[in-house]
């Protein structure tokens, strides 16, 4: 390395002569003798691996598909149906007006027995919670602690009110809080919907401070979405926490509440909806989802199908390799298949 040879001829060459007097040190690392595994993909190995994957994946796929089948789910799109006929030409005007009656009643039939807990979700389509302007427009510091109430620099354009005092919670996400409400009843008897414990534990305990109270919220000229009870600290505003966990895709579901009783098959559920939230301006959809869960979560056939597909493909490949191996075997590592041996004039290309 060092080129401070006695000769001082200048270049770095002297180092070579200096080193040359020494035999390289032996260690298993320098001699590249550390234990290593260099698998060769022989037909036997390849076929075995494919069969193994197939045998493992197909049962997993079947089990997942079965679990997904057992989930009972009711989806009801109500955004268009809850607009009175006379406003059907100008839905935005209806939703923006403060005078119109936005109450809307829907009747849903339970197809199968739904064991508690039954989850109630709202689903929005074509709502870009992942928009850059939107997703950045929040102040985590401000949400966490009272001391940072004026930390609104990242919240533009919903940072402060017209006279410059800070909005708590600030930012576009909080400002556009979803504010439709649902009331459930079965056979005229009100169905309790629990709104406790619908947000993440970490949100409640650390990200949203218990000493932070809403201030100046939705008090500007433009009203976005829902309002907040300014007497409750943010750590108890679970709807806000759910909303502020922004979704990655434009179609998303968010938890509204939990029904803690079983719903019998063929029961009629009446839902009274306060249709307040504006999705009409950008052509979005609103859906109400009532669903049970299983160990794989909500209703989702994709996982099972994916497992089945991969497993099936592997089995198919394994079988075709076996056939090829039986019908036209070829010796392993045959040099005559190398490019320069295949074609005597292979130097051309």
């Amino acid at each position, binding site marked *: 390395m060092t*080129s401070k*040879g006695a000769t001082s001829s200048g270049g*770095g060459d002297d180092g*070579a002569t200096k080193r040359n007097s020494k035999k*390289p040190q032996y260690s298993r690392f*320098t001699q590249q003798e550390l234990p290593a595994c260099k698998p060769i993909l022989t037909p036997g190995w390849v076929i075995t691996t494919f069969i193994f994957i197939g045998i493992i994946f197909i049962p997993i796929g079947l089990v997942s598909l079965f679990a997904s089948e057992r989930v009972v789910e009711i989806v009801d799109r109500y955004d268009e149906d809850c607009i009175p006929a006379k406003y059907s030409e100008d839905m935005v005007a209806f939703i923006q007006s403060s005078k119109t009656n936005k109450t809307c009643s829907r009747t849903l039939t339970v197809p199968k027995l739904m064991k508690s807990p039954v989850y109630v979700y709202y689903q929005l389509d074509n709502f870009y919670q992942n928009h850059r302007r939107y997703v950045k427009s929040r102040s985590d510091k401000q949400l966490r602690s009272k001391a940072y109430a004026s930390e609104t620099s990242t919240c533009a354009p919903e940072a402060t009110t017209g006279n410059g005092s800070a909005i708590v919670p600030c930012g576009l996400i909080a400002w556009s809080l979803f504010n439709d409400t649902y009331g459930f009843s079965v056979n005229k008897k009100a169905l309790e919907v629990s709104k406790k414990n619908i947000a993440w534990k970490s949100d409640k305990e650390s990200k949203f401070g218990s000493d932070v109270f809403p201030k100046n919220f939705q008090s500007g000229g433009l009203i976005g979405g829902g309002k907040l009870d300014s007497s409750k600290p943010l750590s108890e505003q679970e709807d806000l926490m759910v909303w502020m966990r922004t979704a990655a895709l434009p179609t998303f579901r968010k938890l509204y509440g939990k029904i803690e009783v079983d719903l019998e098959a063929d029961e009629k559920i009446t839902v009274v909806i306060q249709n307040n939230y504006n999705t009409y301006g950008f052509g979005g959809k609103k859906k109400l989802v009532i669903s049970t869960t299983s160990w794989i979560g909500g209703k989702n056939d994709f996982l099972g199908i994916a497992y089945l597909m991969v497993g099936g493909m592997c089995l198919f490949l394994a079988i075709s390799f076996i056939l090829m191996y039986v019908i036209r075997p070829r010796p392993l590592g045959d040099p005559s298949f190398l490019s320069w041996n295949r074609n005597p*004039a292979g130097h051309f290309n």
Partner: protein
Amino acid sequence: MKRYVYINDNDMSQDVYCDNRISNRKYTVLNFVPKNLLEQFSRFMNQYFLLIACLQLWSLITPVNPASTWGPLIFIFAVSATKEAWDDYNRYLSDKQANEKEVWVVKQAVKKLIQAQDIRVGNIVWLRENDEVPCDLVLLGTSDPQGVCYVETSALDGETDLKTRVIPSACVGIASELLHKIKGVIECPNPDKDIRRFDANVRLFPPFIDNDLCPLTINSTLLQSCYLRNTEWACGVAVYTGNETKLGMSRGIPEPKLTAVDAMIDKLTGAIFLFQIVVVIVLGTAGNVWKDTEARKLWYVLYPNEGPWYEVLVIPLRFELLCSIMIPISIKVSLDLVKSLYAKFIDWDQEMYDHETSTPSHATNTAISEDLGQVEYILTDKTGTLTENRMIFRRCCINGISYGNESGDALKDPLLLNAVASSSPDVIRFLMVMAICNTVIPTKSKNGAITYKAQSQDEDALVHAAAHLHMALVNKSGNILEINLNGLVIQYEVLDTLEFTSDRKRMSVVVKDCQNGKIIMLSKGADEAIFPYACSGQQIRAFVEAVEQYAQFGLRTLCLAWRELNEDEYEEWSLTYKEAKTTLVDREWRLAEVCQRLEHNLEILGITAIEDRLQDGVPETIETLRKAGINFWMLTGDKQSTAIQIALSCNFISPEPKGQLLLINGKTEDEVSRSLERVLLTMRITTSEPKDVAFVVDGWALEIVLNHYREAFTELAILSRTAICCRVTPSQKAQLVKLLKSCDYRTLAIGDGGNDVRMIQQADIGVGISGREGLQAARAADYSIGSKFF
């Protein structure tokens, strides 16, 4: 353009030429940062990363923390800058050491100790034994009465043997005290980097009687960084100083080599960048359109109606940043790290350690290790690479009688021993040529044993063999040469040495027998350089046959000859020779012409055959590599038959039924072109057959082919898997490498001698063997190994 150096004259040449301060530094403290940055940013990839890093500073558009790009960027820049700085600092230290070394210089006729950097052109520098020469000097005097001194030039050309240097004839006999006051002028060419040539003249001013022009050659110079050995003192006048010395001029960073992967990465980076720009434009436009049509409807995003002027740019630039990982910054960091680790593994490998010379392998160039796996053509030197370059005298043919045929060792052949014992005149003359006609320097150690220092292995073998046959070269001091024949010391005076050059392919020595005053010329050389000049009466058939027979065994042959000269002829010739020696222009050519005038009518004495043993494991290695589809070319300076013989014995080509040899030969353009076409035709036919076809071309035909039939030869080169090129010159070797490279093949050149340096530098990968022919090749190479095939 010429330079006039006024010896010991402070007024005349003080300021015209630079001082002796050596500087190998690339940077100074001030310009390091800008120059280094500029250099690093000349690579496209670095510019790209800088652009991305700068864009990331704009918080409006960046999706990530700018540190994620700035961190690695600064890291890699810091690493390579530190490496550069460290190298440069070491260069500075070694420069400083050399510059501040104290040397004795004559100033105002008094010897003074000054720092080496203060030497000026024209100063007289005194050196003692084992001193390093501080600048290029012209010898003026030495401690030896004959004006001889010895230097070791290993730092200059890698050859470890001692070389003789002689003071110019004009300075012979000047007392050392007078040397302080010597005045004169040296007329020499402007500085160049040819360390084998120095064509100059010196003229001494009165009172130093000799007012004639006296020629100077490289033989009377002491070049920078050589060492004075075996000589008490020497003094010389500085002609080139500082960075203008031969060494300084020949320094220089060779063009960096780019591997296939690097070239591919560079190309792909460019392509990806273009693609990225297309993507950015398309997506950016689409994004802007979507924003204006759709996103404004999204009330929850609250787009302002009027944005700043640069708003159109925001979305495209964001896409640019998102796409920037298409060219990951990690590729540079990890490639560099992995490559230097590869190189280290090569250095560390114990299996590539040569026990005999205790040299481990060394990867000088850390950047090209992955190319080692992609070699398609190996161009190899024969001597020292395939063979051991350890010459052993095996057979000889004296006056038509071959010795050593039965035992394979002439030194043990009783016939020859008898002939020596009985002092058969032919044998004695033959041995005399062996012992005298060379440039070997005998040195006597204290216990009386004589060791020989020879520049060429052949000469070494011959002198040793002669000594074995009781014709020992015992002493060479000045012009007087002593030979011990059966205990009888004979003295000869060497009058002239007609040196060996690769063009002449022979050397001669003119000596005067000190007993009877007869002048004899002794020659030795390649057969085709000697036979044509044999005296007309002599039958040379027997010799020609012997040469062919020896070549069949893969032996190197040399032809020995002699001629007696009469005094007048010599005197006359001597004058023209002196004149030729003083010419400044085309001296080499003029000398060759003059030498030719003397080297004729030679009486051929015999043929020597020297064995050049194959390296261990060569046939197996070549076999394996050929199975892997690597094509072999052998480039050698040896003659055709020897080359073919060696090629056969190391599995290079297969013997007759399986293999076929195609010869390209001919002396004229027509002959060569016909022969080339014939070979090409055969080649085209046989490509479909499983046959080993190789072509053989010699240097003469190659010259014609390369000049006139380049395309046909290129096609031939592509078709054939094996080629043997014999009698090729170093520059032809390099030309062949270039030819293969131009066909987009990866080439690896391997060699050990100074004649392979150009080939090694030219090839994609140069491998040098630190073998017997000195370290030149190993120095120029990307990889150097101790001995060949492991």
